[in-house]
């Protein structure tokens, strides 16, 4: 899946400091078009700051983020809306708007489509995110945790972004709902050709859908395929992937792969 094409998003020499505490120290990261990249790291290792840096919400102390060769801070608001979709951890749905209005908000300001069309497209995105049709007129407080995530997916997809950033998409969800979200991510990646960057602690997500995994350790980043990361000698990476949770997730992922390929 990883092509040898130019990276769609590249970060070079990122330095982030908070007071004397350095979170990132000359960190490099490339995201290839069409891939699903997982970002992991211990608590406080700067995953969220990295996500904010990549999307241009946080300006790094040093270093540069480029999207298709263009510095992220020089991209206009309208193009950024069409480039990036972000799924925030708590959903960040606007509480005063219904789900459909949440999805239509960026369309209202960045396109010149008539309202009836926007509603049709919003209904399509809501359906695409796997929500029942009648949830379009519901308000965020009427939704369950899994439905909030799906509604936030629908909004993140509003303008067909090229890159989708997901901040802990399966946290706080039961395993059945979490697997549904994993399947949705894969479907969007394959059907819409969206590049996906996932910050997650969910080992099952990493093993089943991520093509490559970026591990934040020692203020730097290590990127590789997960099967090669398993052989890494770094103590944190080893403990992370070979702990009891890691073993369980790996077994589950292998079983799923065998079933989907029809191998016994």
């Amino acid at each position: 899946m990883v092509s040898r094409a130019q990276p769609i998003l590249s970060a070079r020499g990122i330095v982030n400091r908070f007071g004397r505490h350095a979170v990132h120290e000359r960190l490099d990261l490339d995201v290839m078009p069409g891939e699903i990249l997982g970002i992991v790291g211990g608590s406080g290792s700067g995953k969220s700051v990295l996500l904010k840096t990549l999307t241009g919400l946080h300006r790094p102390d040093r270093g540069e983020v480029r999207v298709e060769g263009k510095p992220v801070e020089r991209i206009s608001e309208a193009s950024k809306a069409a480039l990036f979709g972000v799924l925030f951890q708590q959903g960040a749905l606007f509480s005063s708007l219904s789900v459909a209005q949440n999805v239509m908000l960026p369309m209202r300001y960045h396109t010149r489509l008539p309202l009836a069309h926007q509603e049709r497209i919003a209904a399509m995105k809501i359906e695409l995110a796997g929500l029942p049709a009648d949830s379009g007129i519901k308000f965020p407080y009427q939704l369950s945790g899994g439905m909030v995530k799906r509604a936030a997916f629908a909004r993140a997809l509003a303008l067909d972004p090229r890159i989708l950033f997901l901040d802990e998409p399966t946290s706080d969800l039961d395993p059945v709902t979490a697997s549904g979200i994993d399947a949705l991510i894969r479907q969007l990646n394959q059907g819409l050709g969206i590049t996906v960057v996932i910050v997650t602690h969910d080992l099952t997500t990493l093993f089943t859908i991520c093509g490559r995994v970026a591990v934040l350790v020692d203020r730097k980043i290590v990127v590789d395929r997960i099967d090669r990361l398993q052989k890494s000698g770094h103590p944190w990476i080893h403990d992370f992937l070979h702990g009891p949770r890691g073993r369980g997730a790996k077994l589950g992922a292998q079983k799923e792969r065998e079933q989907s390929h029809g191998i016994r």
Partner: protein
Amino acid sequence: MSSVLAERRSPAIDIRADGDSLAIAGVLDISTLPDAERALKLRKLVSVDLRNLDGLDSPGALFLCGLRARGVELTGVRGEHKALLDLICGLDLKPLPKVPRVPRWREVVIAIGKGGEEALRDARDIVTFIGRTANSTLAALVQPRGLHLASVSRQVAETGIDALPIVGLMAIMISVVIAYQSVTQLRSYGAENLTINLVAISMLREMGVLITAILVAGRSGSAFTAELGVMKAREEIDALKVMGLDPMRMLVVPRLVALVITLPLLTFFADAVGLLGGAMATQVLLKVAPMQFFEHARSAVDTHDLMVGLIKAPVFAVIIAVVGCMHGLRVRGSAESVGHETTRAVVKAIFLVIVLDALFSIVFEQVGW
């Protein structure tokens, strides 16, 4: 595919018609969709050729799926677009359901009914809460270890000492306003010396305590609601209950006791600073020396004028603390309800303070104070 940044700047679509078949070239996405819609309107179509279509997004695919559903054949679909078209055409699309409309007159009736019900509930809640607070406060005062003195002292610092600068400033401003307003009226009777009486009496009896109570309601009443509301939303109140600790005694009683201590002190401070402000204003207006002002004021007011103001302060303090804490504990679930309850707490506290002040005026008039 070329750079998306370049594409977004100049999205181009080229539609060529040939009889009842059509060829779409370029990019069919959310920005070029209106052009495509316009070109295809009122046209009978049999087939659409997509061989030269370079870019397609999901709204574009939705449009093409709509054509296909009407019996138009899509020819020359490129491999890279097939997955997207299959995905979108495979969706079971339904229009958004209509929001049920309620007639305007019914909305008004419903609003009146809800408002009335809520006012009744509010009145009942506040009486209940005053009772519960009184119960917990008395129990805490009787039991030597029941009152959390550290908590009380922190609340005294936050609601009292931190409020001194703003209370003092407001008291000076109000007394200056009273002095300037009354001097022009009294001058026409040649009685401008009575300005001193007016400033002194109105500061001590009414303005000192009222201004302080309103400021404290806005400053500390809202803080009580927000603090307790956030604790409620984050399940900290439930955590206290599970540990066998009474939230009333842990959180409400210290705030109430602290405010009952600080509001009379703040009122006394406002009275003193207000008189000082009056002295400054009359010095400018009437060329009266400050010492003369205080001598004259002493003959105009006596101790019970001061007491009339100070007696009201603890009552107002109870109302502000009770309303603030009650609304804080009323927060349900999410963070937005904290903001909602804070607004209501401040409005209600100020309203009740002014209502009680009016009642006090009537009572004191009857008693002859």
